[in-house]
């Protein structure tokens, strides 16, 4: 289980995360939506300590830390328990697809190379890239790169995989293959926290949708409720913009 308490992050003098509370159960798939610049990505980056949060408590499994007092060792441990999928894939450019997936197992988990490569091969098969094991990122399509990015996160066996707009940099032709891999993971009940603008993914796959605006969680609930009957006017506004084909009825009328 993952628990975030009153998480705050400031950049210069603007407050990007203004006291976020969030609980994620094991096997839960949560999709975070909201306008640009509302701190969705920053939330993910704080959970992975790619950004140092300014206040709050973070609990992942049996590890609970006050983020301002986290030691170097605790930060490493938190990163090992939270895998990250980047918008721009961020594959290691000097390593093959296989090595990208095996790298963390070898360096961080100290597996022998043969065992790590064996596991990486299994993952490559699951993400449908068995024949690309020895290909370098530069020779892969955007969709293939992002699937390797997800494979790298799968290898970490983290408590949660954090997806930071995983399809936003992709050409439209590659979006589906990445989304369907994510659906496949969701069906296996891999705990996921996904920031995305793919509303259909949120509606079809999420157990819970979280709407963020201005550094706060405005509203959250199962997609059936949040999309059909949003309570907050800000949620309604946002959904009206991103779901033009399905006008949202106000529950008040």
């Amino acid at each position, binding site marked *: 289980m993952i628990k975030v308490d009153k998480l705050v992050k400031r950049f210069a003098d603007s407050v990007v995360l203004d006291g976020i509370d969030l609980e994620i159960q094991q096997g839960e798939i949560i999709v975070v939506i909201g306008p640009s610049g509302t701190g969705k990505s920053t939330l993910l980056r704080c959970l992975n300590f790619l950004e140092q949060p300014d206040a709050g408590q973070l609990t992942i499994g049996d590890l609970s830390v006050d983020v301002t007092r986290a030691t170097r060792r605790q930060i490493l441990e938190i990163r090992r328990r939270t895998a*990250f999928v980047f918008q721009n894939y*961020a594959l*290691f450019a000097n390593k093959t697809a296989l090595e990208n997936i095996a790298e*963390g197992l070898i360096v961080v988990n100290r597996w022998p190379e043969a065992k790590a490569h064996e596991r990486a091969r299994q993952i490559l098969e699951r993400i449908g890239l068995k024949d690309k094991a020895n290909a370098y990122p530069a020779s892969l399509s955007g969709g293939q790169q992002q699937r390797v990015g997800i494979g790298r996160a799968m290898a970490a066996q983290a408590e949660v995989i954090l997806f930071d707009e995983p399809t936003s940099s992709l050409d439209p032709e590659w979006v589906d293959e990445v989304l369907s891999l994510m659906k496949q993971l969701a069906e296996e009940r891999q705990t996921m926290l996904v920031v995305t603008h793919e509303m259909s993914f949120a509606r079809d796959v999420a157990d819970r949708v979280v709407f963020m605006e201005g550094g706060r969680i405005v509203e959250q609930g199962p997609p059936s409720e949040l999309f059909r009957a949003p309570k907050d006017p800000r949620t309604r506004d946002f959904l009206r913009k991103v779901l033009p084909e399905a006008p949202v009825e106000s529950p008040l009328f």
Partner: protein
Amino acid sequence: MSILNVDYMLGLFPILVSYLPLTLGMAAAGMVMALILSCCLAVIRVLRLPILNGLTKLFISFFRGTPLLVQLFLFYYGFPKLIADMAGVSVTILGHTTVLPMWLENATEISAITAAIIGLTLHFSAYMAESIRAAIVGVDRSQTEAALSIGMTNGQLMRRIVLPQATRIAVPTLMNYFIDMIKATSLAFALGVTELMGATQKEAASSFNYFEAFITAAVLYWAVVELLAWLQRRLESRLNEAYRR
């Protein structure tokens, strides 16, 4: 009598070739030490280590700002003389008076070859530190973030991800410096080292075949550099393997 004494050149060629090991040896030794030193300097600059960063900047500024020949004379004639003169001198620091030991007189006597290698090392490491620093900074930030995100330590991500990628960026420039260093070994001649240039000078002076002697030496340097340039292209193409689409 012909204008060009070809027989002399053919006879001189093997003699000059026999001096290549010394020339290349000095360059190789200088390059290995300069690589180690410049990597340290570059890391100090990238991490902005307090105090060391300032000293490194001063070091780089001095060795880039003064001619190599001046530096070589400083190391061969200047410092040994300075330190030898200090033997037996009494100094007072903060009220304490000590007499500097007499062994200083011979402590820093170094061979001309050693002085040349030290000078080449320091001079070129100043230049190389800056290109290595640029190469490290030039590795995309996303690579560091990806490495951090899976729980690597700073040391691990430097070793496994950043430095290998920085190497690819730095190799063309570093090879250029190596080529430059091979040619710069000829300045050791001014310290009295009989390397390729010194040997040529002696041969030329005793035979009066100045043009033949120096053109032979020039061709030798040129051939070595071309060989290296060929090696450089092969190395670069191997390093670029991962980046071909």
